[in-house]
């Protein structure tokens, strides 16, 4: 294997490791930290299944954002849906066509949706960048990292598009590399500059995920204003740390 391939293999194992461990420990922290008081944003569901629906609407449709700002909603939603479609298309690099999942992914519809999603993804990202640059209020709250995040995603999308529409790469070799990572038999990385840039940026994205605002992805599921049932009058809700207070409470 070439030195280049070796470094890419190491890069990806490191990225995967950081993503899994970083995100895992963050999620564990969220799980372990209690929400000591009932604070759902009302009106809130009064049943667990209602909460599942509420979170579902939040994750699938961005319900609150829709109520809030139609432009941010359309650009944000477009980007995320496109990302999902692109993700499905990319699965062909790790799943062969010889099983049912592989066949589904190989379907023309999945592949072309994934392909053209790159356009909508870029539109969404440019829209978000435009708001950040030109809406005074959003510009005020933006840090360098907020712009860089958008530029990173745009670069990933752009290099991907170039490979899809302009300068094709060796798909079989890419699959060997990707599958190789999974089965622990590293293979050579295709040595086209475009794919190397694309892969490096994706690895970078994975690395910064657990230490950046990308934590909004797990965060939405742990948001007490969204995931709590409205049943405070019916059920007590005492955090572990509040138990000693509970036992010694009283003014008399």
């Amino acid at each position: 294997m070439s030195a280049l391939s070796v470094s890419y293999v190491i890069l990806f194992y490191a990225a995967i490791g950081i993503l899994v461990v970083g995100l895992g420990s963050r999620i564990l922290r969220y799980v372990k930290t209690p929400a000591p008081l009932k604070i759902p944003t009302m009106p809130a569901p009064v049943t667990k299944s209602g909460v599942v629906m509420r979170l579902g609407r939040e994750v699938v449709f961005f319900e609150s954002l829709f109520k809030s700002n139609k432009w941010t909603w359309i650009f944000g939603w477009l980007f995320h849906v496109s990302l999902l479609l692109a993700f499905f298309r990319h699965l062909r690099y790790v799943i062969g066509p010889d099983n049912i999942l592989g066949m589904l992914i190989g379907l023309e519809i999945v592949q072309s949706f994934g392909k053209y999603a790159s356009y909508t993804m870029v539109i969404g990202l440019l829209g978000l960048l435009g708001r950040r640059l030109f809406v005074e209020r959003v510009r005020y709250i933006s840090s360098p990292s907020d712009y860089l995040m958008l530029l990173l995603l745009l670069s990933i999308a752009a290099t991907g598009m170039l490979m899809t529409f302009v300068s094709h790469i060796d798909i079989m070799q890419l699959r060997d590399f990707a599958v190789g990572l999974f089965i622990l038999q590293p293979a050579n990385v295709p040595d086209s500059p475009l794919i190397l840039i694309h892969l490096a940026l994706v690895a970078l994205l994975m690395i910064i995920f657990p230490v950046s605002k990308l934590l909004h992805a797990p965060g939405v599921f742990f948001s007490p204003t969204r995931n709590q049932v409205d049943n405070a009058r019916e059920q007590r809700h005492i955090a572990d740390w509040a138990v000693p207070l509970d036992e010694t409470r009283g003014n008399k």
Partner: protein
Amino acid sequence: MADFETPVLQKYPVIPSITIDAMKDSAPFVAKPEHQDPLGFPGELVDDWKDRAIEKMGELLGKYRSFQVYLDSCVKCGACTDKCHYFLGTTDPKNMPVARQDLLRSVYRRYFTFAGKYFPKLVGARDLTKEVLDEWYSYFHQCSQCRRCSVYCPYGIDTAEISMAAREILDSVGVGQKYCNEIIAKVHKVGNNLGLPEPALKDTLEGLEEDIEDDTGVKVRLPLDEKGADILLITPSADFFAEPHIDGLIGYAKVFHEAGVSWTLSSYASEAANFGMFIGSYENMQKVAMRIREAALDLGVKRIVHGECGHAWRVAYSFWNTLAGPFDFLDPNYPVPQHICEFTYDLIQKNKLRFDKSQNDHRVVTFHDSCNVARATRMGDKPGGQFEIPRAIIKTVCNNYVDMDPDTIKEGTYCCGGGGGLLTDDLMEIRVKGAMPRMQALNEVVEEHGVTNMAAICAICKSQFTKVLPYYKMGMDMIVSVHQLVSDALILTGQEVDDDEADEDAA
């Protein structure tokens, strides 16, 4: 009227452009040692404040999932930037919810995150300095913890949670807010925000009984400390002396009278308000809430009914059970606590009250959803009951009712501008400016529909509007209690009425 300009009301809501540092000098009076001591906080800024503040932040990160998750999750999408009444009224960008959070998030990042420790500039992290602490004190007292921003944030990020944490950190290093902490100390000592002792309370209630009798010819009681009564009424102490609150209290008394239930107030727990929430102190909030449990046990009541108050209803509805429950010694057939609106609505449903709606014909009424009632509690069995029940009551007792702009009511309601511990004269500018979006919506229905009165079910809202309406060239008596409208239309059994006017149909 004051050394600031009252915002000009526009015909339609507009999102203003930002004015950096417009409100940087706004800060409430700082608590003195005698206000801090009884709450268990240091009397003044401690020497090692920086270390202790960071330590406290760390402690809160481990105690409150909301705090931890919200500091991590914001993507700076900007969706909340135009949702805060204080931003709309002051145009100070630090009053945009996300910017307010960032005042604290920047410090969190610096001391608790990888990115902020190693790349502070990149992610907008900063050291905790005295300037930062002062900035916290200023801007976290320009947030009424109304939760409007949390409705519109894609992750439900609730700036109120951040404000509460910030105030708790400030308290823990000795920088408390005088208004809140002085009041909490009074409750711990006397039992209500005003420090009103039992004899004064008794006098007031007797006076009210006389007024009602003069007015209606019917003897309606306002009992105090009556053991064995069925219902304990917990209501904000403003109901005992302030206008228009007191007319609401008369309304509750009349409703209880007509319902034929025995009820009582308690001089030990003569306060529904619980400012412990505003300063984010679980311990103080619990201590205040416990007085109510203790009073209920002492008096041997079967039910607790809660008067018109917003944040207090939040504490009662959402936190009492946790802080001071379980209330298994009360009658399980009724919710604990029950809101006075739920109580009255129930009687209306059962046709137990008779009204003469025409008594309110000189009014065209609109309803101000109080932020804490709307976004932090419920009434009745169904989500949204907190919007429908008060409106149903008003429509039962008034012929003329209109709602304000749909974007400014129900879950999207604008705070009155005085909530969250800001209802103090030293914060008049932020109070007046923060009231602007509500005043704008009100002005619209005044001009279009001839609205004469705005009803509310919150003691803070009522006091705040009484004070700020004149700044916007509207009458301070426009604001009324919901139970004042009930009181005006209710026909007491045995009351002398002109038969033609009486509307026998209770519905």
